[in-house]
């Protein structure tokens, strides 16, 4: 917490010397001893898992850059060379490629944790907002990285996504040409994407420092969602190390097992076969789909019949997260005590999965069976187009209508005075 005092006492002469000059040992020790709510469940372990993911991506990425050639004529071949000839190159590339998916699995669970337990509410708004910035940077980095192997999906993904910017009225076209470095996606584009793909992870790392700084200042949320009263700090908090390093460590091991299953048993399960065809600017693959972690946003893009409107909706879907702390009017943080909101949250979960599913389908394809119902405006009602529209509507209604309205109207369950109370009723009596 913010008022957490430093308890570090330098023991040796070297530590004392260091402590007046660069108190880095004190800094580290204070972090290790950070008082942490004792009721954190396993949903709280994704922060540590994400740190592991970022480190894995940076380390494998630096190694891959030693063998990769950012040139339209050589990029694809250099990636194949990494796969076949570079010592252990296949492993490093599969770890990096699947690592991106693992990173997104973890970040989505981390965000849903924050959403369910109200971790974005006062005084933790800045933790959440910096987190949203990190999420946005992750999407940008993943997109840039996906272009580098210069396969068909790389090329056409880059084509479609950069064209989104061209949808901006008036200035879109000059910005598009500036971004690509020419009239079309070409060598200039590949070179700059490589440069930026190398840069952004370090920007993310910088934002992670801010994220942790904000976390240190405001203190961790917990499943009960209450701020821990000062006089309960001794009873309800435990030092981060060893209690939560061990808990996080266990979760990290489970997570790495899942990661390894993908890397060693089905390394291409989350990828797309078309990306093993070299990029061809004259032929679009029959069915372009982004990586799974972008699918919900891609679905929202396609739901809007207007080109610029679709782009606005897609960015709004991420943008709305930034203002979430002010959209939610409830004083109660944890949805454990908000049964009405909890129901809508569960629907929201299904909607997110549904959007992801729709993003991978052809818009005109029927959802149920193969029959036509009736045409509503510009598509059959029994089509992914309309399913996507209903889901998109719920996505925005959830944040823009349900969050503010339910917060004001619902009747929350009684909230315990301490985080011990729900598990140890005797402490409630003792308090009373």
């Amino acid at each position, binding site marked *: 917490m913010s008022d957490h005092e430093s308890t570090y*006492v330098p023991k040796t002469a070297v530590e*004392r010397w260091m402590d*007046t000059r660069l108190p880095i040992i004190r800094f580290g020790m204070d972090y290790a001893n950070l008082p942490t709510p004792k009721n954190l469940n396993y949903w709280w372990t994704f922060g540590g898992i994400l740190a592991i993911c970022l480190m894995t991506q940076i380390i494998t990425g630096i190694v891959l850059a030693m063998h990769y050639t950012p040139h339209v004529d050589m990029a694809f071949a250099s990636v194949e060379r990494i796969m076949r000839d570079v010592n252990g190159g296949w492993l490093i590339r599969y770890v990096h490629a699947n690592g991106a998916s693992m990173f997104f699995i973890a970040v989505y669970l981390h965000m849903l944790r924050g959403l369910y337990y109200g971790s974005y509410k006062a005084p933790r708004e800045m933790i959440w907002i910096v987190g949203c910035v990190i999420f946005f940077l992750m999407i940008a980095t993943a997109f840039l990285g996906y272009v580098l192997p210069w396969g068909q999906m790389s090329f056409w993904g880059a084509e479609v996504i950069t*064209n989104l910017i061209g949808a901006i009225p008036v200035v879109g076209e000059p910005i598009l040409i500036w971004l690509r470095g020419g009239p079309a996606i070409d060598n200039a584009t590949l070179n700059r994407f490589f440069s930026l793909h190398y840069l952004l992870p370090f920007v993310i790392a910088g934002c992670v420092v801010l994220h942790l700084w904000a976390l240190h200042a405001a203190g961790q949320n917990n499943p009960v969602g209450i701020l821990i009263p000062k006089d309960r700090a001794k009873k309800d908090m435990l030092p981060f190390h060893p209690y939560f390093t061990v808990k996080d460590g266990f979760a990290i091991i489970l997570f790495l097992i899942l990661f390894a299953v993908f890397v060693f048993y089905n390394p291409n399960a989350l990828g797309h076969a078309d990306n093993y065809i070299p990029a061809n600017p004259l032929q679009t693959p029959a069915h372009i789909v982004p990586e799974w972690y972008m699918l919900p946003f891609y679905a929202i893009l396609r739901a809007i019949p207007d*080109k610029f409107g679709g782009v606005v909706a897609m960015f709004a879907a991420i943008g709305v997260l930034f203002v979430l702390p002010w959209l939610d009017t409830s004083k109660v943080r944890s949805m454990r005590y908000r049964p009405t909101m909890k129901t809508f949250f569960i629907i929201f979960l299904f909607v997110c999965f549904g959007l992801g599913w729709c993003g991978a389908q052809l818009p005109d394809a029927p959802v149920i069976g193969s029959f036509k119902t009736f045409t509503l405006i510009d598509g059959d009602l029994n089509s992914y187009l309309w399913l996507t529209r209903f889901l998109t509507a719920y996505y925005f209604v959830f944040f823009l209508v349900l969050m503010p309205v339910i917060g004001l109207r619902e009747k929350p369950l009684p909230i315990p005075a301490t985080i011990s109370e729900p598990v140890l009723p005797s402490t409630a009596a003792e308090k009373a």
Partner: protein
Amino acid sequence: MSGRAAGDAEVKRVAESVVNADGPDGQHGGGDATRRDFIHIAAGAAAAGAGVMVAWPLINQMNPAADTLALASIEFDLTKVQEGQQVVIKWQGKPVFVRYRTPAELTKVIDEGAVGSPPQTDAERTKAGHEKYLVVIGSCTHLGCVPTFNAGDYGGWFCPCHGSHYDASGRIRKGPAPLNLIVPNYEYMSDTRVKIG
């Protein structure tokens, strides 16, 4: 601060006195604009101007380079296209469709009059005397995919990415694309030769 060595307090006191030392700014409390205010504004403006001048080359380097711009035009021999077929050529990194339309296709697109977005007649999209050849940039005006030849509801092209239908004049008839396929600048060098760009 309990655990620190005695010397630390001394270090800290000295450091604070440096931070809080009364600088020339600290002495001036009047509300009027002074020469110092003027210097602040002038220095700030100069720094901002210099910042822009430094930033511009760093931004402008991302615009198309001279050699990229030099690849501005190509020539194409129309005898390579069979009736009812199209040839895809690469111009400025983008596909260009050169389509030799059948009489039936031609009659259809001319009879339809001005359609598409913006509404255009077929004559506005071809050169007089060469109506059977259509030259368009083969990038869907939605998000840039290459539309599939001879597919879709209007006998022209169909974009596989998001389902835009174009007719045999390259005009958008159905789907999310906002504009007709773009007709590039081109001219006939002879009856069988065009220069694009």
